[in-house]
């Protein structure tokens, strides 16, 4: 027994165990989130609409996502004839993988970082672009007129909204001087005005930058009011028309995974990540106290932002397609360029005097 324990405590084996624990943890986190965010969405939608929501399946409808998952899994996964078989099957995989990969670079708590990548921020945007390609492949491989139209719209929408997003990220990078996410969170320690969103002395329009990032995140994940791709109640279901059963389920899960990734990036960059303001943890509380408290803070902020995403969806109607593009090219890009300029001037100002 003790020989096995000694083996398991060796440093290289510990590294492998750590890796396995994180893999299982992330897969579980993504799975549970995808399922139970559906529950949160349905309950929030119901409460906004003055009704109770799912109540029958389990207490307060908590087993409803399990019923939905069983239903989706029991359906036949059809591959329509004439489609490009390889692309059709690859598209769901291609959309889910980047979403899961992005979870490895996030700092959840002090010490709980699966992979402390020095260019952590860059990995997010690298993987985010694969997202767009997967949707396009899904639409194209379906060999369906309406799916192609819908995926063309999605591509132009996503490309248009990536630009302001990147400009706001460059603003943040200029302020923090690093792309390492753990360091960015570390810089926001201490008081609540140390959080990046309130750093007005470095960038006067920081809250506006946060708002632009949030709007771009909504557009990138195809959430209302920018959901031309999925809620095409005008014609048919859009890019996912031909997918049935679990193929559709994977797209669905990927959408919620993308929302979680986007919102965690927003909390890390702007709201201080796992930092709790004015809290200094004494060493007598043990090694795990800091991690647990940090984790709680991170999840609290994350779910507040996700609740806002869901809240926005059930309040506003859809924008017109041209209105969507106008918003991005004519309003968001000039404003984000302005904040970038302002930020660079304000950062360099002390050096001139």
């Amino acid at each position, binding site marked *: 027994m003790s020989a096995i324990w000694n083996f398991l405590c060796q440093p290289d084996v510990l590294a492998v165990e750590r890796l396995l624990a994180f893999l299982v943890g992330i897969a579980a986190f993504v799975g549970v989130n995808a399922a139970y965010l559906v529950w949160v969405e349905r309950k929030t*939608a119901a409460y*906004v*609409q*003055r*009704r109770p929501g799912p109540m029958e399946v389990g207490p307060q409808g908590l087993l409803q996502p399990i019923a939905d998952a069983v239903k989706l899994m029991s359906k036949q996964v059809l591959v329509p004839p004439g489609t490009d078989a390889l692309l059709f099957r690859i598209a769901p995989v291609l959309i889910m993988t980047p979403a899961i990969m992005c979870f490895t670079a996030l700092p959840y708590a002090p010490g709980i970082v699966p992979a402390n990548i020095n260019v952590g921020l860059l990995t997010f945007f690298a993987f985010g672009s694969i997202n767009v390609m997967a949707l396009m492949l899904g639409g194209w491989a379906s060999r369906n*007129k309406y799916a192609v139209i819908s995926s063309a719209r999605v591509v132009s929408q996503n490309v248009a909204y990536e630009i302001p997003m990147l400009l706001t990220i460059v603003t943040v990078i200029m302020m923090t001087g690093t792309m390492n996410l753990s360091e960015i969170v570390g810089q926001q320690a201490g008081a609540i005005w140390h959080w990046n969103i309130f750093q007005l002395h470095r960038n006067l329009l920081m809250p506006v930058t946060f708002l632009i990032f949030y709007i771009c995140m909504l557009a990138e994940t195809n959430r*209302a*009011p920018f*959901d031309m791709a999925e*809620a095409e*109640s*005008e*014609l048919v279901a859009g890019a996912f028309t031909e997918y049935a059963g679990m193929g559709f389920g994977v797209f669905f899960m990927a959408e919620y995974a993308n929302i979680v990734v986007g919102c965690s990036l927003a909390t890390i960059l702007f709201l201080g990540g796992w930092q709790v303001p004015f809290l200094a943890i004494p060493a007598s509380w043990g090694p795990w106290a800091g991690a647990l408290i940090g984790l709680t803070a991170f999840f609290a902020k994350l779910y507040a932002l996700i609740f806002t995403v869901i809240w926005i969806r*059930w*309040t*506003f*109607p*859809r*924008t*017109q*397609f041209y*209105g969507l593009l106008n918003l991005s090219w004519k309003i968001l890009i000039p404003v984000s360029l302005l904040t970038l300029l302002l930020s660079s001037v304000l950062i360099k100002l002390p050096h001139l005097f």
Partner: protein
Amino acid sequence: MKVLSKEEALASPHSTGGPNETFVLNLGPQHPATHGVLRVKLTMDGEFITNAEPVCGYIHRMHEKMGENRTYSQFLPNTSRLDYLSAMQYTHAWVGLVEKACKIEVPQRAEYVRVITSELNRIASHLVGWGAWVMDLGGFTPILYAFDDREKILDLLEHICGARLTFCYYRFGGLVNDVDDVFVQGTKDFIPYMRDRMKTYKKLVTENIILRKRIEGIGPVSQEMCLRYGACGPVLRGSGFKSDVRINEPYSAYKDFDYEIPVYHEGDSMARYLVRMDEIEQSLRIIEQALAKLPEGPFINPKVPRSIKLPAGDYTYATEAARGRFMIRVVSDGKDVPYRVKLRTPCLSNLSLFEEASKGMLLADALAFMGSLDLVIPDIDR
């Protein structure tokens, strides 16, 4: 780089698939929206509509033929089923026609109650039209708020007549049964509640920038075009022409009340939307005045014969339904069954605008336009 106008863009060789290459899209009989069974054959050039041909008749139930085989009191349930959202107003036209032809007098109390219930029905119908239209545009919440308010109206009407949608509440010479204090008090409580809700809806929906960008300037319909097609109701009043049966051909007790007819001049979907919202407020005004002045007395004329025979001749009667001018024409040859019943419904005339107005529109805009016409398909097909 030159900016092309829409016609140049459609004609240029760089448009989708080249000039004259169009495809036919079927906005099939089954809509994801709540209009009913209407089929529209759209010929599209990429995203733009070049031709739209509505094909109706999927819910034709031969009401006019049924009118030739049923006595005058047996036809009453049919009138509720034409435009089921404003059933009281359609029944009002039928009983009004028979009363006018046979010179049956209606007691004052019955007239006032008819006005109150018709206006309540108008509010309920506008709520459904509004909620369903915003749902088409992607906002899924206002329809549930609208149906919640409509529940209150339907509870009131269920209390007096027992039915929630296809009321058969009017009879020749008055009403089926009288209203009681519960109804009067309930309606009096409903009026300030509804005014409060309208303020909320104005802030939530009307002033919302996303909705405004979506419907301002969509589907401009000129006054001349409306008159050419015979459009009526909020569609006509949204194009600047003040026409309402309640002031042009006053019927029932509408002369006794003081109300306005909202008219907007822009002619786009926003104007039609605002006309409907204002009409709800004006209906509340009428109900308030009617409740305050509600006279005592009988609720039905006791001298109405059991079996009604209209003297031979040609009779018409028009009422202002929620969707426009509804007119019935009966040709009678003295028997107890009409010789011919003609129902002139507003939705068919309103739909005929769609073909000309949708040329060159984007598909999403065309659907917003169709929602602003507030169509109920059983009304078109009868």
